């Protein structure tokens, strides 16, 4: 689905009906994401086996921490997620989850990403060279290079909460960029696949808006 083809739907239309699979691969705690989804009227559950993904209206791959932890997303999970994406189910990667949608990360060179977006994630120190602290922690502003469903209604310069050391390059599918010594992909969107490097569940009203935008596609 290309941008502009689908009318913006309010998430509240689906209140109580949207079921989101929150993929737990052991990368940090999912309480915040679950809570934010509840606040916008979605129910999140954590599938224990890849086969359970079939009943999801949308899939979120969250995560903080090391790219190596995505190793737990075995071929079975990768195949199930790809199949769902091919069926049009919305997929959202958050933080390391966004990085995993790319081809890989120098943080764990032998672990493959899902390769839905081109490019490899690199650590900030390769760019900022000691001028800025790493990790990049705190509120930083977004710039939108094009219109996307994910970032609909989010004003240029809006600030969101980041905490990460590795970042994805800016690509054609970038939906929002952020600058921290180097410009990187803060959000990506292509069709029903999206990712955010920041934490929408920790980014106040702006973050909830972005999650609502994404949920609107999950039916």
């Amino acid at each position, binding site marked *: 689905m290309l941008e502009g083809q689908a009318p913006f739907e309010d998430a509240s239309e689906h209140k109580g009906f949207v079921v989101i699979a929150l993929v737990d691969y052991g990368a940090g705690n999912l*309480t915040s994401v679950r*809570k934010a989804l509840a606040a916008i009227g979605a129910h999140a559950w954590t599938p224990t086996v890849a086969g359970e993904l079939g009943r999801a209206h949308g899939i979120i791959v969250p995560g903080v921490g090391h790219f190596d932890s995505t190793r737990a997303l075995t071929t079975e999970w990768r195949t199930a997620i790809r199949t769902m994406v091919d069926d049009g189910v919305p997929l959202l990667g958050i933080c390391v989850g966004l990085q995993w949608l790319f081809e890989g990360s120098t943080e764990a060179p032998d672990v493959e990403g899902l390769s839905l977006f081109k490019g490899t994630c690199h650590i900030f120190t390769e760019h900022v060279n000691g001028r800025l602290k790493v*990790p990049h*922690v*705190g*509120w930083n502003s977004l710039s939108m290079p094009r219109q996307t469903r994910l970032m609909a209604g989010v004003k240029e310069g809006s600030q969101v909460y980041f905490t*990460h050391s590795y970042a994805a390059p800016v690509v054609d599918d970038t939906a929002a960029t952020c600058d921290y010594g180097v410009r990187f992909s803060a959000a990506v969107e292509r069709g029903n696949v999206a990712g955010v490097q920041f934490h929408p*569940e920790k980014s106040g009203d702006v973050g909830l808006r972005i999650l609502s935008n994404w949920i609107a596609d999950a039916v």
Partner: protein
Amino acid sequence: MLSKRIIACLDVRDGKVVKGVNFEGLRDAGDPAALAKRYNVEGIDEIVILDVTATLESRQARAHTIAAVAHEIFLPLCVGGGIRTEDDAAAAIEAGADKVSLNTAALNNPDLITTLAKRYGSQAVIIAVDAKREGDRFAVYARSGQAGTNRDAIEWAREATDRGAGEILLTSIDRDGTKIGFDCEMTAAVSDAVNIPVIASGGAGTFEHFAEVFGAGHADAALAASIFHFQERSVRELKAFLAERNVPIRR
């Protein structure tokens, strides 16, 4: 541009905010969740719950407080005070905290930093360093400033970073409660020594003090409680002031 963060500290005991709170129109001033909600509306960037009680019964009360605050705000939430073991940290995070702050426990058992960083990621582990000037060094104290440790704040901050800490919360014991300003010299010394964010604490009395600690103090964030509580000055006013001084902040 990355913003300088303004962090509000809620001192909680048995589920109630214990420091004086003077928000106009706030009915239950001692309710941490109501206060956090108010701070959120005011534009606070982050909340720290400092729960000084640490008995077994109070652990449940703390979990309840964390859950209540986490329910009200979608901002980074840190919990400190009485986090002594991996289980304490796990309980706080399970209840909805994004980060835990370790102080005495990390001094007694530095391996705990690594253990928690491996389990939850470095971003979830804040090391609180309470330091006091002694001659030309900054001496680290444990047990809420009561016990000396023979550790130097700069060296300890470096070690904590190497062990996996994600941020340093640096409190000046000399300045705490004085309202004469942050210890900018100490903050800059620690901030320059590590490559992780440093949160300055202790001594905030005026808006100017925040501008100083973000400038000369090289602080990445500043934490305060009483300036917002006692003086009825709002976070919004502070941010307007800092914006005028060209300090990058979130508005």
